[in-house]
């Protein structure tokens, strides 16, 4: 029973990782950029929401809405100000640039909010739960998983069913040829980056609602997101969800075996997948497919 409980909790935890991983996967799949500031952007959104809700006294829903819209703008600015200037150069350049941004965001947050852990207070909803067959399921983690599945489904539908999605896939495949059939690659990249950072914001807010956050928590979120993306298969949206759930279950089951080894168990599963299936578990269903 403890094991089954751990698997259920791990699946729910996977929802949070999937939200972080979705944007990372999207930007990598389309711009071929590994955004090392992705986790920190999520934490930025988390602290912005905490600041607006707890500090400025805004209603929670309004604070979250304002932050999410703000994160879309941050994403657009990230592309226009940083990524657009580094694409076409060596891929390492954009990695170094986003690494620098990661350091700046983390330390600025620490300067403004201090290093104290904080959380986004959802009131009774944050701790409410139901017990199904002896297993307790928290409403909040279930909601986060549902939001993650909805976000990935929405992203999938946009990419496969809309003209914008076709432009994104064409640009991901061959930006020069996409340009020749009238697709503005710069604009496509900008919108994709804005969406990805918006997703990072959603993930950061979900994280801050579920547990305590510190200003320097970004890199650990990035690592989990990165592991989820790699386990699932680079550039594969459904793979990202599967990878996130596998990682969550590994961490959760690992904690049952030894309470201090949960994260380690996740890393070991990541390494095992990398060693045996380097293309990921669902390598076929690509973002481009």
């Amino acid at each position, binding site marked *: 029973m403890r094991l089954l409980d751990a698997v259920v909790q791990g699946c729910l935890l996977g929802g949070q990782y999937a939200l972080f991983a979705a944007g990372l996967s999207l930007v990598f799949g389309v711009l071929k950029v590994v955004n090392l500031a992705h986790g920190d952007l999520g934490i930025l959104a988390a602290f912005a929401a905490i600041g607006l809700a707890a500090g400025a006294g805004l209603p929670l829903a309004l604070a979250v809405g304002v932050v999410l819209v703000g994160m879309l703008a941050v994403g657009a600015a990230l592309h226009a100000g940083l990524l657009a200037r580094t694409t076409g150069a060596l891929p390492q350049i954009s990695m170094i640039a986003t690494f620098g941004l990661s350091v700046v965001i983390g330390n600025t947050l620490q300067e403004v909010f201090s290093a104290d852990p904080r959380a986004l207070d959802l009131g009774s909803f944050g701790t409410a739960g139901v017990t199904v067959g002896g297993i307790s399921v928290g409403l909040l983690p279930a909601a986060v998983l549902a939001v993650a599945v909805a976000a990935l489904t929405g992203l999938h539908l946009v990419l496969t069913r809309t*003209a914008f999605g*076709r*432009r994104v*896939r*064409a640009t*991901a*495949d*061959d930006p*020069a*040829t*996409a*340009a*020749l*059939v*009238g*697709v*503005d*690659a710069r604009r496509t990249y900008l919108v994709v980056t804005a969406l990805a950072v918006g997703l990072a914001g959603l993930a950061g807010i979900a994280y801050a609602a579920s547990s305590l956050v510190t200003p320097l928590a970004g890199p650990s979120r990035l690592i989990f997101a990165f592991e989820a993306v790699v386990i699932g298969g680079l550039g594969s949206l459904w793979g990202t969800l599967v990878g996130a759930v596998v990682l969550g279950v590994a961490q959760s089951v690992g904690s049952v075996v030894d309470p201090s080894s949960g994260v380690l168990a996740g890393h070991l599963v990541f390494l095992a997948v990398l060693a045996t299936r380097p293309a990921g578990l669902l390598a076929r269903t*690509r973002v*481009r*497919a």
Partner: protein
Amino acid sequence: MTASLAGPDVAPALSVRGVRHAYGAVPVLQGVDLDVRSGEVVGVVGPNGAGKTTLVDVLTGAVTLQEGRVVLGGDDVSRVRGAVRTRHGLARTHQVPRPFTGMTVFENVLVGATAGGVDRATGYDRAARALVATRMTALANRPAGALGLLDRKRLELARALALQPRVLLLDEVAGGLTDAETDDLVDLVGTLSGQGLAVVWIEHLVHVLVRAATRLVCLAEGTVIADGPPDEVIASPRVQQAYYGGPGS
């Protein structure tokens, strides 16, 4: 300015004036002038190194124009980015086809057909008509990555036609095709030009162009050395000399 150069009728669909281009110290185009009117199929030939590929790059905006002007349907696009030139009515095919391999044939065509604020119904209609024109309808739902060479070339053509261009640039499109496939292509280009499309066809297979083109232009060492009916251009001593060397002007 363009109107005075275009003659009394209408502005040419494509007008190239005084285009010069050099890679570092090496001049490649040394003052190219070219007018292509609606309904014309202008074949561009020339020995290796004549500047054909650079001319394509200048027309499509793949390289930044150093000197001269490119005018599409009366709009000076010399300083316009390649992605935006399609909106001025220019479309092209690649020498080596470059389909979006992760998409179906229909989706490939739809990307261009629905770009630039075209509404959904119009875009789908354009895409469908481009597939009919290139006889690709039976393959519409195939993944483009699974197509053979001929079908990839037809897809390139369909994708270009879906943009509803006024000027179509064909870059070495006949290479690797059988005689029957080439006949098909020549027929298709003839039909399209009959509907008013201006075609610029760059090709090293001169015999194909002699059949397909209404006018032939020969480039050598970065300038136009002959421009006229295909038979006359092929027979011209300057063209013969450019291709085969020997004494001449």
